[in-house]
């Protein structure tokens, strides 16, 4: 009973809180990094260097009036943000933060497929939110979101298959172990796959330059135009939680998860003394930084160009990568 | 009641199957009819998986994979037809599709 119910529940509670706190600070990090990129200071008023802004923002969002438009579909309107957040949080149940079972809630043998399939559920929140608002811009946004997600999911899944071919396991722990045994992170074995997964991840989390369902300058905020207060903040949480998920997946698949870098260089062996989970979280934050950096730099794609990129560029490359991986796997 | 046998799964499957059949027969909205067909396919899948577990034979699961593939194909083509039809007739009522031409 202790091992099957209490401990996992405790882990889940800790993990959920950690993720939600991380998300609030991620918002602050995004504001700060973008501010620095734009030669601004960013939030400075609340606490030293604006650190307490991460607490002030959620409080503001919770206290704000939560408006339901008069002609909205009330139930779906409330359900949509929840449907968007829950899958993003569920994924963390299979993310390993370290080598021992202590560091993860569960390690299932279809872990990678689980991550892909559960994240694909998250799009319902966006689609339904846009539809339930009974407003035209959100409707356009939700049509965009559904088309975008389906297209990019194919590319990402195809690419992950080529990584699975290299590892021979779907378990996330197994994938990291394979990199430890191989002594080489998959970023160097599968560089094309890394690019594809990262680009696809940007598109799936609706981040710039693929933030078309939001596109505040075109669709005035897209699917969450009509949302406010707590329900809006749930969408917000979901977006950032998804960013963490994608970063975690990229780190696990391509950057050795919790492994310390340069294990074979004796001069740098002190890197191994740092706890594994710190390496993992540090790598995740590196990728979150890249997410934010890209947002500060690039303009936005247009809808047709986005679909063209997905279907005409990424999917062919993904299939080509898969074929080459297969051939090399058999040949070597 | 407390011990779950494959019979339970089969009955669940049968009940879901019936719900799907009712949906197909009663509803006039083509899209809902399509969804009812998906329910029927799911009912069959439950049965296949339950029996696969009981017989310790993977054939059932293989068939489920095929059923899902067929369902995907069916959804793609079927929804394509619905869109093409709606574009011309502005309706998705099955009673108005009976002439099979437009």
């Amino acid at each position: 009973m202790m091992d099957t119910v209490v401990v996992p529940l405790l882990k889940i509670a800790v993990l959920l809180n950690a993720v939600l706190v991380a998300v609030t600070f991620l918002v602050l990090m995004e504001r700060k990094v973008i501010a620095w990129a734009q030669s601004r200071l960013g939030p400075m008023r609340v606490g030293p260097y604006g650190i307490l802004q991460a607490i002030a923002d959620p409080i503001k969002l919770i206290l704000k009036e939560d408006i339901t438009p008069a002609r909205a579909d009330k139930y779906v309107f409330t359900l949509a943000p929840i449907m968007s957040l829950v899958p993003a949080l569920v994924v963390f149940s299979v993310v390993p933060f370290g080598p021992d079972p202590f560091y993860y809630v569960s390690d299932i043998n279809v872990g990678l497929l689980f991550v892909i399939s559960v994240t694909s559920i998250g799009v319902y929140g966006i689609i339904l939110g846009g539809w339930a608002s009974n407003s035209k811009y959100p409707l356009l946004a939700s049509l965009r979101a559904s088309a975008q997600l389906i297209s990019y999911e194919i590319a990402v899944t195809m690419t992950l298959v080529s990584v699975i071919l290299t590892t021979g396991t779907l378990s996330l722990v197994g994938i990291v172990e394979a990199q430890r045994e191989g002594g080489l992170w998959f970023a160097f074995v599968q560089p094309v796959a890394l690019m594809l997964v990262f680009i696809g991840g940007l598109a799936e989390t609706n981040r710039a330059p693929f933030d078309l369902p939001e596109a505040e300058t075109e669709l005035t905020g897209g699917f969450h135009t009509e949302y406010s207060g707590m329900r809006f903040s749930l969408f917000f949480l979901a977006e950032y939680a998804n960013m963490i998920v994608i970063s975690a997946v990229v780190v696990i698949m391509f950057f050795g998860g919790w492994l310390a870098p340069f294990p074979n260089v004796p001069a740098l062996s002190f890197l191994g003394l740092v706890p594994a989970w710190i390496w993992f979280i540090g790598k995740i934050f590196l990728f979150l930084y890249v997410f934010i950096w890209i947002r500060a730099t690039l303009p936005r794609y247009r809808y047709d160009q986005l679909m063209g990129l997905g279907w005409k560029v990424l999917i062919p490359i993904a299939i080509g990568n898969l074929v080459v991986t297969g051939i090399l796997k058999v040949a070597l | 009641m407390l011990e779950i046998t494959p019979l339970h799964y089969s009955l669940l499957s049968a009940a879901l199957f019936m719900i799907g059949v009712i949906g197909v027969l009663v509803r006039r909205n083509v899209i809902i009819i399509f969804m009812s067909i998906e329910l029927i396919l799911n009912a069959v899948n439950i049965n296949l998986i339950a029996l696969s577990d009981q017989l310790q034979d993977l054939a059932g699961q293989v068939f489920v994979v095929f059923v899902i593939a067929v369902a995907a194909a069916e959804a793609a083509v079927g929804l394509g037809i619905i869109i093409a039809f709606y574009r011309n007739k502005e309706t998705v009522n099955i009673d108005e599709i009976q002439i099979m031409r437009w």
Partner: protein
Amino acid sequence: MAEAIVFWTLAVLILGLGIMVISARSAVHSVLFLVVNFLLVAVLYVMLNAEFVAVIQVLVYAGGIVVLYLFVVMLVSLKKAPERYADPRRVAWTGTLLAGAVLLEVVAIVVASSGGGEPAATEGALGAADTPFAECGAGPLVSCNTEQLGWVLYTSYLIPFEVASMLLLVAMIGAIVLAKRHL
């Protein structure tokens, strides 16, 4: 005991949601119930040691096909519900009666054929003898049937597998031809 609780909960929810799917007034609500229904069916698959199929169910059904349905439902924004044209009550009665007949037949077959009720445990009835089911269990939490399923799919069922991929290709082209306005 635990299995019974899970099964009955799931059974009630699946059937209830099924009824909601076919009775919801708005097509979008139907799609919503359908998604939840499929997710619960996936949980049922996990109970039955078919976790690969469960994940595929979520990935393909809930994540792909139903999104497509939702897409079409929103595209076909209906001004009036299609039900208004016909006399719904007559059709409903006929439909329910017919469906009841089907149910009776199915239940009769199920009950009659599962006379023994005990797990038959006859391995390899359909040519899968080379991959005994019992071998898996090496996985950390749940047994690993993905590998075996892949093995069977690419050996015993290779031709059906290829035919299925052909079918998908044909469906893809068909859908493009149907949906494209001008070729």
